[in-house]
């Protein structure tokens, strides 16, 4: 694996991890909102 290839590999992994984290965070907020809405 060349250094350029490895850098690109890491960049993609990092970008995917960041998007996944944002989605999980949004889901946490959404589930909290749903729980509150269902109780009202």
């Amino acid at each position, binding site marked *: 694996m060349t250094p350029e*290839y490895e850098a*690109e*590999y890491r960049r*993609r992994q990092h970008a*995917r991890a960041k998007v996944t984290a944002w989605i999980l965070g949004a889901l946490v907020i*959404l589930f909290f909102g749903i729980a509150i*809405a*269902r109780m009202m």
Partner: protein
Amino acid sequence: MSSPAVQMTPALPAEWRDFLALTKPRVMTLVVFTGLCGLLAAPIHIHPILGFTSILCIAVGAGASGALNMWYEADLDAHMKRTRSRPLPAGRMDRQSALHFGVALGVGSVLLMGLAINLLAAAILAASILFYVLVYTVWLKRRTPQNIVIGGAAGAFPPLIGWVAATGHIDLLPILLFLLIFLWTPPHFWALSLFVRTDYAAAGVPMLPVVAGVRTTRLQVMLYTLPMAAAAVAPWPLGLTGAIYGIAASLLTAWFVLLAVRVGVSRETDQALMKPERALFKFSILYLFVLFGALVVDRLMLA
């Protein structure tokens, strides 16, 4: 004697944008819009967070359908100019990732709909995903030129799901909205397939213009437009909507019929010169957006 160690270079992971592309975001906009209109047109008020969740589930369910469709059709997509740059045929993603992604989205959207909204909405959402993937993509698309007619039902579910998410039951108006999209799909897709038919022929998809010819397709476009027009206008005389929707539906549908007749009487065979077909295809998208927008305005005014 031991063999020399082979150093394998791992394949690059797909970009997150490629996963997004699998969900067919452009198709999703119409799905989200019609689903939202079904939800807003319902006579029962739903909590905004639950309404948002319903639309999110419809969108993610549509994304799952798109991803599974691309997973199954990667070989077809590679043969068509319109689709060959998609993540799978372009080699930017492996098929297994697409399959896992599609299944995860589908199961997640149905579970969330069932747990947060209601079981009927979840059941219809599951049916729409399975219908699109199994009935349309796997079963019909490569076998019959009527693929679009029956497959159109899959795209007709969102307003029904939106309505059921708000009310918990099925009524006449969402059934008419279902029928409207169901009957709108053939003229919409056949108009497109007329001017990209060489693409479909190259991929071996038995689209109507490829199998039955351009003339038959044009006739079918006109024929399907008539029941579609009836379904579009019907809510007004049936007393399900007011004059705002009624007048908008009448005017828009009259224009749609006029464009369909222009397609029907056209004798052009050169795809590049098929202006009436392109005009009908473009207008058909606008038609659905404006019609559903008028429905919501009308129902909110009535409320």
